[in-house]
């Protein structure tokens, strides 16, 4: 859990994830590596010295000085519009981390893992799914429920679909607009659709829920009402709408 102050970081690569999100790869000299699910703080400093800090989840894990972030633009935000629309490879920021011990998957834990993402909440959950896919002989059963407004709003869409090849069950939920071939319901998660897209409490999964605050609170309430023990439901709220 190394923290240890601010480190300079260089943007090594930037590619669009959706019309309003981007995937940044940072090169962070001295980065000690991170666990799947951890986050970092980014600090931007304006020419007049004004500074702004925000937390961003890390899509990558393991050793190395390369750190991948998936960042969704909050239109009235102070930091995300710059990271999504302005910053370019070669630009520098400062980062602090890796941070967090609560919203972290322990690759040595054989318990089933149910991931539930809302929007850009996929980022730390993808780090866990990637770690599970990469773990040779990893035994923990994984299942992902990914709720997005529309297909075009899904970050990492192709990679998420490809997780099924690694033995990770993937369920999609569309809250406003579904793809043409979709024959399910469209709308926010309900007790019924959540039960249909996730493992039941009897399976004793460790559940990770990440996304906008209202999504996480509604989902966590439904999970507990369905019988999941509160201490098996780990949450990370991004704020926003």
């Amino acid at each position, binding site marked *: 859990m190394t923290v240890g102050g601010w480190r300079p970081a260089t943007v090594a690569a930037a590619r669009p994830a959706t019309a309003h999100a981007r995937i940044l790869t940072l090169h962070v000299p001295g980065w000690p590596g991170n666990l799947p699910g951890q986050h970092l703080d980014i600090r931007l400093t304006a020419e007049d010295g004004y500074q702004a800090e925000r937390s961003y989840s890390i899509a990558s894990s393991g050793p190395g000085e390369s750190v991948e972030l998936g960042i969704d633009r909050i239109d009235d935000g102070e930091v995300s519009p710059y990271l999504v629309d302005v910053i370019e490879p070669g630009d520098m920021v400062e980062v602090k981390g890796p941070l*967090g011990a609560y919203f972290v998957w322990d690759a040595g834990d054989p318990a089933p893992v149910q991931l539930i993402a809302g929007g850009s909440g996929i980022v730390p959950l993808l780090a866990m799914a990637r770690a599970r896919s990469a773990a040779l002989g990893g035994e923990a059963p994984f299942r992902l429920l990914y709720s997005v407004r529309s297909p075009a709003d899904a970050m990492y869409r192709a990679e998420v679909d490809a997780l099924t090849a690694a033995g990770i069950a993937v369920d999609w939920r569309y809250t406003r607009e579904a793809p043409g071939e979709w024959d399910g319901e469209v709308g926010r998660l309900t007790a019924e659709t959540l039960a249909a897209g996730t493992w039941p409490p009897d399976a004793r999964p460790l559940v990770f829920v990440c996304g906008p605050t209202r999504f996480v609170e509604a989902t966590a309430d439904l999970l507990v009402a369905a019988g999941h023990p509160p201490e098996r439901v780990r949450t990370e709220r991004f704020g926003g709408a």
Partner: protein
Amino acid sequence: MDDSPHHGAPPDEPHGPVRHVDGNALAGLLADVFAADMTMALLACGHCGQAGPLAAAVVEDDGAAAILRCRSCTRTLLTVLRADGRLSLRIGALARLDVAV
């Protein structure tokens, strides 16, 4: 291992003679409390008694003050103020903070 009288036993059950020292003697012990990642620290609310990991508590952060609230009763457990290059930690309704060592 640490043989200090306040370590590992409730305050009303001392298991050795009380040593009268000063805060310097707590450097190592408090390093274990405050140097750890705090998201897994267990915080107990002195108002309603609810206890849970810090990561699950409610936070309101406007950039100057980060207010940590009890998710059960909404009382302010603690506040971190950022000002003039200093951080100020103000304890509110927090009754207890437990960390694994």
